[in-house]
């Protein structure tokens, strides 16, 4: 399988700040790849390194086997969907979408036909005559997508593309992006701080923290078998259990993670004693915030179960198989 984007020991420093620090990364052709991390973790800088807006301080970047460092953005077959869309305010939607073709000298009729087709693809047919200012956030998002896709990039970069949309629209766009990517077969690289988004859309996820990659894997690997406490905590708010706690409850004396939905209420006399501190209603389930032997534990229980009230003393149980001992014990 071809490697679409390859980072070898890539660093990008801004003065003393190590925005990206010795990152190794291989993104496969045709894959939907998510870069997940909190703000300031270096994921966006990595995206900008791929686009060519930043140059690495050290290391080597390849795009489809060709050296990318020192190559300006306009010579890369890579297109970006910007976080705030960056549509040209003085051009109408059709000319925005046709821009990439226009600067490459495609004749007017031809580029407009292709731009119309791209607008059809993102389900905005007939919107060509409007100015970006006349569109809603969701529509601008689609125009930005069409503007990038019309150039048939080898790699499509998406910088938090769904961040500014409301929940309903975001879920709809997630599905559409996923099916678009499948249909077009283009490599998508997607930056997000939303673990739910990364888990539901990506083929593989790289979890970033402080300029480094903490873990790369499929959503299931990252979710169920986090390598470190950071990943466990950041991807889906796992319970991170200290070595003593793990040892008392049937595990080795090591840091472990336990998914909140792996916990269930148990009868008196078995499991772990805990006190209810608070609860959050999530619709299909309820999250209980518990104090168990001095540890703050989250348990997600399905709707319909009778739930203890605040301050109630309860017992918790889980299957040993769900207890995941982390590789990185630091």
């Amino acid at each position, binding site marked *: 399988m071809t490697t679409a984007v390859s980072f070898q020991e890539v660093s990008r420093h801004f003065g003393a700040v190590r925005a990206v620090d010795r990152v190794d990364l291989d993104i496969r052709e045709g894959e939907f790849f998510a870069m997940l991390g909190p703000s300031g973790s270096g994921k966006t800088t990595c995206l900008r390194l791929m*686009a*060519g*807006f930043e140059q690495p301080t050290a290391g080597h970047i390849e795009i489809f086997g060709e050296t990318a460092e020192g190559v*300006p*953005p*306009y*010579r890369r077959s*890579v*297109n*970006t969907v*910007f976080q*705030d869309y*960056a*549509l*040209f*305010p*003085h051009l109408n939607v059709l000319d925005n979408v046709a*821009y*990439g073709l*226009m*600067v*490459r000298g495609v004749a007017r009729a031809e580029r407009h036909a292709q731009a119309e087709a791209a607008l059809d693809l993102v389900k905005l047919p007939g919107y060509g005559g409007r100015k970006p200012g006349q569109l809603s956030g969701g529509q601008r998002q689609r125009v930005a997508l069409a*503007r*990038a896709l019309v*150039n048939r990039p080898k790699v499509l970069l998406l910088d938090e593309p769904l961040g500014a949309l409301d929940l309903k629209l975001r879920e709809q766009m997630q599905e559409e992006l996923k099916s678009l990517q499948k249909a077009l077969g283009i490599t998508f690289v997607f930056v997000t701080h939303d673990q739910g988004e990364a888990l539901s859309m990506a083929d593989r996820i790289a979890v970033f923290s402080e300029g480094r990659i903490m873990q790369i894997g499929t959503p299931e690997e990252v979710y169920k078998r986090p390598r470190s406490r950071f990943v466990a905590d950041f991807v889906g708010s796992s319970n991170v259990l200290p070595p003593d706690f793990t040892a008392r409850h049937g595990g080795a004396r090591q840091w472990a993670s336990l998914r909140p939905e792996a916990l269930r209420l148990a009868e008196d006399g078995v499991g772990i004693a805990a006190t209810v501190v608070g609860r959050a209603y999530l619709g299909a389930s309820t999250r209980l915030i518990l104090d168990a032997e001095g540890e703050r534990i989250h348990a997600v229980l399905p709707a319909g179960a009778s739930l203890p009230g605040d301050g109630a003393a309860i017992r918790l149980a889980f299957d040993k198989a769900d207890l995941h001992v982390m590789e990185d014990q630091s």
Partner: protein
Amino acid sequence: MTMVAAADPIRPGRGGFFGALSDVLWRNPRLTLFLMLTPPLLWLGIIYLGSLFALLLQSFFSIDEYSGLIRREFTLSTYAELLNRANIDIIVRTLVMSASVTVGAAIVAFPIAYFAARYARGKWKALFYLGIMLPLWSSYLVKVYAWKLILAREGILNWLFAKLHLTWLLDAWLAIPVVGGNSLSVSHTGTFLVFLYVWLPYMILPVQAALERVPGNLVEASADLGASPRQTFSNVLLPLALPGVIAGSIFTFSLTMGDYIIPQIVGTSRRFIGQAVYAHQGTAGNIPLAAAFTVVPIVVMGFYLWFAKRRGAFDAL
């Protein structure tokens, strides 16, 4: 947690005249607007526009060639005089100079404004504003006389050209008819350079303000879509900065058209519109012709703005 007890749900009025006045003004925004706008509008409307129209009215009167008195009867004869050969020369010369100064200022101002808007931060930005504004603090006459010395045959510019063994280049330039002359200080080139220097801040500031409003990611987006820096400039930066360039050009163009001091101190003896107005309303006492001359810049600016609007220069506003 205890909170400080809340005050009354509705607090009593501040009392006094000013307290009552603020309440009234708050309740009547139109009254506030009226009070704020009336004094400046009166000033602009009566003192400024009023006297301008009074002057323009004069252009429809004529002067009695024998007595030198103004005949207060409607006539177009002054305009006929305005369009004679010598006066047309003055108008064309002024327009060409104004246009050259405007284009020159736009070319020089753009990179400076771009740097200031894109890259200058903190201390550098302050330095930029100081550098742009500082020349405006010193007297206009001082600057113009300073330029006369700089451009003179014994001046520093000639000396520099001599040191660089480029005197032949300067001489070749000065040998060109119309733009050349005996020395830079008595040529149209000299007049152009001084105009360019004096009006440059009026071009830089609006262009910088316009560029400041262009989000940086539009430049990145353009490059991302495959546009070379030159294509990004002509397709994204220039159209979006155009309202600023037009605003600046209104300044440089109209200021050059109206100026009568610079061409008098630096340049040839051939007159510009400003000098003609000055001469006609002063020594010659021909107020109608002076008034007719002042109509020219107004008409030209009107056409210029109409044309700029038609070409979509303000679409990005």
